């Protein structure tokens, strides 16, 4: 009984240490999105390269697709960009670009310079659609399933690990469904 009581401080220490460790291991910048598992917010926006044509979320129904939020002023978009270009060449899944709070000529010039991995890019000049999608930083990438439900959100530049271990397996699984 006495020896059990001596273990109490140790047990308390372990509990606190585990909580603190979990707290340290989490990235506070990654805010879990309440939109995962919910229908993707609808938009109908003008296309970046063809301003007289529109793209709507309804047009993407029936296929798995990625929405990548990007901007020419976004430095970390350049980090993930080569990976997106590779992904586009592999032709696994269509990537729609949301050109977020950008100027159209600058967006087009940026794609000309670094390559255009997007099936279509649409223009969200005032960031309204971004707010609907819960975007709070660029880049962000969403996985949307055939029924138009958001299945995953990646915050920050897509890394090769995130693409290989999370995004692509999910895409393949959703494509089979």
């Amino acid at each position, binding site marked *: 009984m006495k020896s059990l009581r001596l273990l109490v401080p140790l047990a308390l220490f372990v509990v606190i240490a585990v909580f603190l460790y979990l707290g340290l291991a989490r990235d506070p910048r990654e805010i879990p999105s309440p939109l995962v598992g919910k229908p993707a917010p609808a938009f109908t926006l003008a296309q970046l390269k063809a301003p007289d044509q529109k793209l709507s979320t309804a047009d993407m129904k029936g296929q798995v697709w990625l929405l990548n939020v990007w901007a020419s002023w976004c430095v970390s978009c350049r980090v993930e960009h080569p990976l997106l270009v590779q992904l586009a060449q592999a032709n696994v899944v269509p990537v729609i670009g949301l050109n977020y709070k950008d100027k159209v000529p600058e967006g087009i010039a940026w794609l000309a310079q670094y390559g255009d991995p997007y099936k279509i890019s649409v223009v969200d000049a005032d960031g309204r659609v971004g707010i609907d999608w819960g975007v709070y*930083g660029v880049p962000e990438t969403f996985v949307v399933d055939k029924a138009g439900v958001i299945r995953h959100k990646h915050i920050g530049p897509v890394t090769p690990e995130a693409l290989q271990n999370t995004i692509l397996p999910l895409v393949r699984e959703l494509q089979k469904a």
Partner: protein
Amino acid sequence: MRATALLLVAMFSVGAIAATSDAALDARLKKLDEELRCLVCQNQSLADSNAPLAQDLRREVRSLADAGKSDAQIKEFLVARYGDFVLYKPPVKGSTWLLWFGPFLLLAGGAVVWWSVSRRRARPSRETPGAVDGTAVNAGVERARELLNDPRT
């Protein structure tokens, strides 16, 4: 001349009415913005932050308020997009139960420990040797008297 004066008065009073209702709306929005977190600079409220997203969200909050939405509806709009994180005061629900009531649990636990420790300390103080066994003391006194009265000494 008179008509011009009247027109001027009318213009100014309309301006004044618009200004007071604007001030009330501004105060309401300021209070609301202070309860909402900026997602970019996370330790600042929407009211304090100059991040572009905070400006956009303040504009969004204002346009929702202009559309006649209540504070609760505006918060709901933001929570649906950004989660509870956007609220500085987390709502009471299953996942936040520990956060809200954990401190009280710890307080109650502390009270139990304090109570049991103070009880254990109080008990032995009644058993300290100095204050016990009057008969033994009396026997000692009696023995001393006998020795004093003993003629042999």
